[in-house]
């Protein structure tokens, strides 16, 4: 029972808890907070998987920027609790069983995908910032540039959309 073992279970538990809370809470803010929790614990799991850089990016971008945006919007619009309408029969009655089936099968699929024997040693394969960066600027240069364009477009789109017409 090494440290990484405990860490995994603690943070996996946190993640699941957060995810569950996310869909359980009726108020968006609480959902957002639980989502942040999920993201944080996922970052730790990434660290356990040796993906340092991704872990950092996860926290900085997801928790630090995207979720801030969410919280910001929620506060700005001062969204209250969501109302309990049940107008979509198919979603109401079919939703849960379908989702559960999906989870079970997906889980089974992934479980089947790899043999149990392969275990995680955080130091065996480390995605250091240097290596990721090198890969990013050699093999994946074009996608990288394209994403920059994407960001720019998204930025302009967001501004155009949210701007009040004078």
């Amino acid at each position: 029972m090494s440290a990484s073992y405990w860490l995994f279970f603690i943070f996996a538990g946190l993640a699941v808890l957060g995810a569950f809370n996310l869909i359980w809470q009726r108020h968006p803010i609480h959902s957002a907070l639980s989502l942040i929790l999920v993201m944080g614990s996922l970052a730790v799991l990434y660290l356990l998987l040796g993906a340092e850089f991704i872990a950092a990016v996860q926290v900085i971008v997801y928790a630090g920027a995207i979720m801030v945006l969410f919280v910001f919007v929620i506060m700005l619009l001062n969204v209250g609790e969501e109302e309990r309408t049940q107008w979509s029969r198919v979603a109401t009655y079919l939703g849960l069983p379908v989702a559960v089936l999906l989870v079970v099968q997906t889980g089974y699929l992934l479980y089947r995908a790899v043999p149990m024997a392969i275990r995680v040693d955080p130091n065996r394969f480390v995605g250091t910032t240097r290596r990721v960066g090198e890969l990013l600027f050699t093999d994946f240069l074009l996608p990288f540039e394209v994403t920059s364009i994407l960001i720019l477009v998204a930025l302009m789109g967001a501004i155009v959309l949210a701007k009040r017409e004078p």
Partner: protein
Amino acid sequence: MVPISYYLVLSGVLFGLGVVGFLLRRSIITIFMSIELMLNAVNLAFVAFSYLHEKLSGQIFVFFVIVVAAAEAAVGLAIIILVFRNRASLNIERINLMKL
């Protein structure tokens, strides 16, 4: 030492929870967050596989997913603000003008 499949199963579970939220919630924002949750789950799977095959490309892919998610969040939230401005409601069931 934790078997890698645990990570995969975890990602599967998270994804499923995301789906549930996606289906059962009514507030657009919450649904949006469920989608983000699903993305995260997928990312976890990516990282796990990248560890499994010892290929960094998986992590690169996660990086791209995060970037795209950022863009998506920007636009999506802008849309949400717009919707709220015009409808004074974020209940997705009230936004049903697509019906003929």
